[in-house]
């Protein structure tokens, strides 16, 4: 699939500090793309460049195959991590203003607003000022303002921070819905559970460099460690361990997962050249196997592993 957004060899420096060092990314159309990285990795710098808030020192950005320019502003929706609206402006006026700045006509903006206000059941807020709303309410408005102009590409910087669980869920459903309707979504976050849940592709930026990129599934495969979680009920536990250390090269550690019985729970890593089948057939000879699952690395594991390796 052709990427909707392509970042090519982007370098950004602030004085002596390099915020982005030759970063290249490809964001596939219609995916939810997780842009991961610890604080200060350069995520926000990259997002600001994509939004044309700042210019890259080197490299280029392509949106839909074209070099990024002023006309693409209306095709991108951006919700920054630090959110805000005019406190003393009325909700409706403010949303209209921001939509018009994105290039919508007043009529279109009004129609879109009506649609979203109805969808999120906030019709009554039109004439309220932001300062009269609660934080959660203001964030709903913030979301509406971001998606109002039907952008092809949506960029959320830490989208769920500050949302209560109910609103976070609501927004999550809306994001998935937008994706299903063809919008591409970039998530910048260090909240791994939401990445695991929602992202189709990920990229990891650390200390100004891109370290990992690809479909989440592929990245996980790449990071698999040939480790299996095993539940077994051997006749004699001591004999079982003695036999295993004498006759095999399997390394086992205690594991922690939930099962119904009181069996022995282990995490066993396959040495080079052995297959899961060999492990399983060995185990079956030693006792009743109640649990046998490959341990899939979580995004969190991958994140920590990559970041701390550096």
């Amino acid at each position, binding site marked *: 699939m052709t990427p909707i957004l392509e970042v090519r060899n982007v370098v950004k420096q602030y004085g002596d500090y390099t915020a982005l060092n030759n970063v290249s990314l490809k964001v596939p159309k219609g995916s939810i793309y997780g842009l991961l990285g610890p604080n200060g990795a350069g995520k926000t710098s990259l997002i600001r460049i994509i939004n044309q808030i700042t210019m890259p020192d080197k490299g280029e950005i392509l949106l839909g195959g074209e070099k990024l320019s002023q006309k693409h502003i209306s095709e991108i929706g*951006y919700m920054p991590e630090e959110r805000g*609206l*005019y406190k*003393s402006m009325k909700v409706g006026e403010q949303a209209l203003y921001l939509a018009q700045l994105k*290039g919508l006509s007043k009529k279109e903006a009004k129609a879109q607003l009506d649609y979203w206000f109805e969808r999120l059941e906030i019709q009554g807020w039109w004439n309220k000022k932001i300062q009269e709303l609660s934080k959660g309410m203001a964030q709903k408005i913030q979301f509406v303002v971001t998606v109002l102009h039907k952008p092809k590409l949506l960029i959320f910087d830490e989208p769920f921070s500050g949302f209560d669980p109910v609103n976070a869920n609501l927004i999550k459903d809306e994001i998935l819905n937008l994706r299903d309707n063809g919008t591409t979504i970039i998530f910048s976050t260090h909240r791994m559970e939401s990445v695991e849940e929602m992202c189709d592709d990920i990229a990891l930026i650390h200390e100004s460099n891109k370290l990992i990129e690809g479909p989440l599934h592929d990245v996980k495969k790449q990071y698999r460690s040939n480790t299996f979680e095993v539940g077994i009920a051997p006749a004699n536990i001591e004999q079982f361990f003695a036999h295993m250390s004498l006759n095999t090269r399997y390394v086992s550690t205690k594991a922690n997962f939930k099962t119904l019985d009181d069996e022995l729970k282990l995490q066993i890593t396959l040495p080079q050249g052995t297959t899961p089948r060999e492990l399983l057939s060995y185990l079956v000879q030693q006792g009743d196997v109640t649990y046998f699952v490959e341990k899939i690395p979580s995004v969190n594991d991958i994140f920590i592993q990559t970041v701390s390796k550096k």
Partner: protein
Amino acid sequence: MSLSLIIRREFTAKVRNKSFIVMTFLSPLLMVGMAVLIGYLTSVNKDEATKIAIHDEAGLLKSDLKNSEETTYTDLSGLPLAVAKKQAAENYEGLVYIPKSIGVKDLATKVDYISSDSPDIDIVDDIETAINDKLTKNNLKELGFDYDKIEKAKTKSDVHLSTFSGVETFKEASLLKIIVGGGCGYLIMMFIIIYGNMVMRSVIEEKTNRIIEIIISSVKPFKLMMGKIIGTSMAGILQFIIWTILGLVLFFVLGSIFNVQMGAPTQPMAGEASKQAMEGVQLYIAELWKLPLLSIFFGFIVYFIGGYFLYSSIYAAIGAAVDSETDSQQFLLPIILPLMLGVYVGFFTVIDDPHGTVATVFSMIPLTSPIVMLMRIPFGVPLWQLIVSVVILFGTFFFVVWFASKIYRIGILMYGKKPTYKEIFKWLKY
């Protein structure tokens, strides 16, 4: 398209603000009220005549110190000096002491004025004038002149004033021009400070609200800054136009009141005095109409726009550089200084000589020209000077806006630290 959107938003945000409405309609009232109050307080202050004691045993001077509305002199020569001093210290403002032994000629150097606090200059002047008169008379007499004849020979002239264009005028017209010009210059300074501050506050507001990042992902920071400056200036111009209209209305109302009274049958006695006063007022009003009012009005608009744009782009850059209004103080001083300089230079040099070198130069320097030139306009300024001054002003404006927008662009995304001049200078190179 987006620029006009921003301008409209900024304009409505300013105009709808309660303080704008209050300022626009209340401050002219306050100004008038202040003027009345100050006038009243001054008259109250001068209500009682100052009491001065004299100790002049030889009688050299006491007959020459005449009582007036402001001062009354009391002769304490009959008392011994020590007693008179004590009395004067308790009950009088001061004591004029003329030693008994001196001759008339010594009056010039030997007279003492003793008072408890530093003396009122008018009183000292009074005494010195009396001494001078006395000595002059004395000298003339010695030289053989008849003082009374000299007095009679003195004449009082009254030069008839008019301009080459044939308009009659009167001496006090200059005073009127100073008041009008000075008022306009002062007003422009106030406008620049008030509206420049508004721009700064609005930038800081967007920064602290954190809406700034959303907006500049839609429009270029430069556009946002310009939109803000233009929108706010329009609110300022609107306010000025409202004030002008209010002023004109007040003017016509006052004018018609005076005219009506003039037409009414004259009452005896008091009528005569008030008639004179009213003729004075009429003369002033007539003279006011003769001022280049249109030039002043348009001069105000042009110089307000130029000066305001120049300064408010600096204000915008400062607003972008800091996180809160309290942090802005250190950067504001360099803005206030040239404005103050403009007002003081204007008040001192323009009044002295409206077309002098200093006044002319300061009406060309863009940081002071809006104020100083406006003070000069009522006196009539050659067209070429106006053109040069406006061209320099707007040329500088473009340069400063470019400069400010660079600071603005970087500053609005910087949070959490108070920048130094050095750091801001570094931003210019990003």
